[in-house]
């Protein structure tokens, strides 16, 4: 079977990152220095090869980019300064736009003005609704609560599930990965393990602190989501729920602030080349945690009645987060990565079957 070549692939992917991958002389140092590579899951050199040769089909069928947690070892030791770590990040951004059936992810990744216009439109929408409801506190907060709920349902069913299915098609169905039913069941286990723990980061050197920060943000974020949406944090009288909300909200904004600082200082290899989407993701997550925390604090101290603008800001942040960042931005990495790791296990299982058959 021959492969179709896309000579513009390298130009296309350069829109998602900032390095000179033509410098690579294919020594394989990056693959071998990485703690996460294993037989059947080889990267990043293979991806650079696909990129240089314009093998788009090959690149899109791989799950390897999601196995990388960007510790930066490959980039630090690359003898050509070809920056393979940033390549993996760029390919992840590019894959996000390829999985997305709406095409909006591609638009927002490539065009900062489009992203900003999107944010402004959502903000206008939120304040318009506030205006329509006369800024009646109860009505607006009731609406906000409903919005959260329906946003989750619709983003999930209309965007995320179809995109995951597309990813499944590109990476498993189309390359004809022949895995047993048993390995699918195992794959579900890995899916949830990695989704909630990102445990593989610990295999990378010197990543324990980053993993812990990341884990606390994820747990804080998911906790906050459950507490505000399903336990109605802003409306409840239950002391336990209120305190849990404070803890999770605090976790989110304190640890995103730490991550934000390290991105600003570029102290880690992963933080050296930030794209607008990276900034929006971390800043909005920070603002969401902070405003949620303050809203509940204002409720408890009775300040919210006179400072209702705070809730409007929170709602705006939340809407922008839910409508733009979650379905089309960096948030999806969280989802795709977990699925990719479980697809990778399917592929490995299929490979083992093949090897065993050959033997």
């Amino acid at each position: 079977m021959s492969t179709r070549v896309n000579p513009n692939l390298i130009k296309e992917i350069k829109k998602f990152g900032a390095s000179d991958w033509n410098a690579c002389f294919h020594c394989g140092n990056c693959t071998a220095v990485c703690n996460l590579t294993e037989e059947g899951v080889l990267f990043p050199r293979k991806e650079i090869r696909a990129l240089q040769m314009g093998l788009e089909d090959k690149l899109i069928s791989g799950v390897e980019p999601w196995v990388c947690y960007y510790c930066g070892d490959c980039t630090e030791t690359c003898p050509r300064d070809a920056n393979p770590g940033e390549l993996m990040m760029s390919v992840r951004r590019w894959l996000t736009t390829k999985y997305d059936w709406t095409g909006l992810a591609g638009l927002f990744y490539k065009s900062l003005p489009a992203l900003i216009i999107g944010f402004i439109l959502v903000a206008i929408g939120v304040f318009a609704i506030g205006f329509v409801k006369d800024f009646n506190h109860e009505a607006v907060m009731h609406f906000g609560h409903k919005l959260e709920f329906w946003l989750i349902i619709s983003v999930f069913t209309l965007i995320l599930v179809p995109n995951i299915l597309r990813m499944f098609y590109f990476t498993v169905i189309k390359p004809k990965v022949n895995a047993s039913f048993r390995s699918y069941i195992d794959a579900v286990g890995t899916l949830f393990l990695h989704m909630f723990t990102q445990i593989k980061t610990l295999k990378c050197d010197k990543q324990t602190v980053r993993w812990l920060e990341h884990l606390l943000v994820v747990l804080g974020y998911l906790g906050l989501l459950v507490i505000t949406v399903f336990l109605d944090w802003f409306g409840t009288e239950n002391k336990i729920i209120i305190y849990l909300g404070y803890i999770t909200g605090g976790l989110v904004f304190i640890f995103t602030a730490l991550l934000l600082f390290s991105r600003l200082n570029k102290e880690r290899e992963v933080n050296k080349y930030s794209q607008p989407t990276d900034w929006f993701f971390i800043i909005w997550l920070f603002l969401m945690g902070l405003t949620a925390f303050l809203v509940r604090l204002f409720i408890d101290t009775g300040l919210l009645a006179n400072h209702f603008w705070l809730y409007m800001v929170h709602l705006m942040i939340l809407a922008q987060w839910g409508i733009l960042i979650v379905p089309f931005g960096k948030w999806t990495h969280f989802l795709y990565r977990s699925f990719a790791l479980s697809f990778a296990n399917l592929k490995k299982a299929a490979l083992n079957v093949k090897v065993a058959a050959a033997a």
Partner: protein
Amino acid sequence: MGEKELTGIYFCQLSNGHPDALNISELAEYAKGFEGVPVVWHSGDFLLSDADHIAARIKENNLSRIVIAGDTPGMVKTFFTKAMAKAGKNPGNVILAGFKEHGANTMIRMNLAKGVLYCAVLGVPFEAATVPGETPVNTETMVIGGGIAGIQASLEIADGNQKVYLVERTATIGGHMAMFDKTFPTLDCAACILTPKMVEVGQHPNIELMTYCEVIGVTGGPGDYTVKILKKARRVNLATCIGCGQCTEVCPRKAPSEFDAGTTLRKAIYIPFPQAVPNKYVIDADNCTYVENGKCGVCVKKCPVEGCIDLDEKDQEVEIKIGNIIVATGFQIFDPKRVENFGYGKYPNILTSLEFERVINAAGPTEGNITFRTQDKKGNWIFTKESGSPKSVAIVHCVGSRDENYNKHCSRVCCMYSLKLAHLVKEKLPDTEVHEYYIDMRAFGKGYEEFYNRIKKEGVHIIRGRTAKIEEKDGKLIVRNEDILANRLVEQEVDMVILSVGLEPREDAAELSKMLGIAVNEDGWFTEANYNTDSTNTFVGGVTIAGVCQGPKDIPDTVAQGAAAASRVLQSILNKKVKGSIKELSLENIEEQAKQLK
């Protein structure tokens, strides 16, 4: 020619603001003063790919010639030949004025750069217009460095019946070649080729051998240099030492042997190796108990020759007057401790290639047996004959070479010497598996490709992929690679790893270059007068370079360059005069010479 020819100048680079870099604006100002040059363009004035636009500008100024000026101007030449053809002019009239190519790439060479430009506009070869004046030459010559390049150059000149001072920093001549076991691709014994030459140097009536000496100052000019030399205290009288070795027997102190690349120990009073020239003892002051605290002197008591050992000898400075200088200072090997992932210095059985050369050498610490590095009673990690042999060996190419983090250049010899080492392992231990990991296999010389094929047939596993890390697990070394051609990740368990370390300029090469007024390139190697056509002369009259100090090269090339450098010196001696320095030529002088050639 009826009509006057007009020339346009295009600067293919801009001033980069660095104070040492050529100021292009100054050059452009200078060029504007030329006759018949109506236009001076700069990089960025127009799109080079827009041939129609350039052609229009050529026609508009009625140019019949174009000069492209800058470093490597050939890179953009085709754009202008195309445009000239489109403009209906002779596309052959695109002339290059390369600054870097003529050694004029820094501000202190502004005169040369202007000269390059002037000659290009006039259509005169730069080399022809920059013939420096000549001065009478002192027929005596100094060679710095007693490796194979310096030895060859000294012998050529001395055999031409001229006096040579051979200045060598260590206590013996021989250099790195003396440490090698075999040469590639012929597998000759290196010592068997080299030691007769060393002996010849030692006995030659025309060679004054100055070992344990260092050049510390050079004054004067081409043909008449005065060189200040530091004669380090050897503490053993070269004239009276009979080399009996009784001193070394009684000496209580030991230190790693430099000649054996630290694979074994020697005494504080020692002969570097049995075939050393001069074959006389030397005292390592850094490890001598007497020098440390004045309480020892057993060697003096034991020495049968009265007054031969003088433990209180001091360094001296001497001066020699010579006409020509040949620089043959060689290289140092890359220190693999700098690559943390390789674990050199942490795991005992990771060796540098130079250490391995000594281990496998019949005159080395193990008498040629490949054994493990073990700790002796005093805690020194050394090789002994008894410590067992490896069942598997990995050879890692390109250590410190072709790497943006260390040395960017290819060291040129490592691929071939690695193949040679693989062969030597197979020869001594046929059942031992040898795994070689390379990035690109550079078998570039006469008989080299054939040698590579031969090694492959011997059953060495030659794997494409750069080693990323080496770790120790249960007493075995794990070498981690991607096998590029098989698309697999390889974790190879071996008993011993040889790191094929690259060559790099000596630490103090830059210091010497300042002393002599010669230049170094971005990698630190000495700069030759012309990359293609004159690889031994420099821009300084009477100073030639030979061997690896000019750039990595193998033994045959080094010998050839040593002989070439000697021929330059002999030429000047036969002519009884030496050419001055091109870099000293004034711009007026270059302009004058160019006009005369026109």
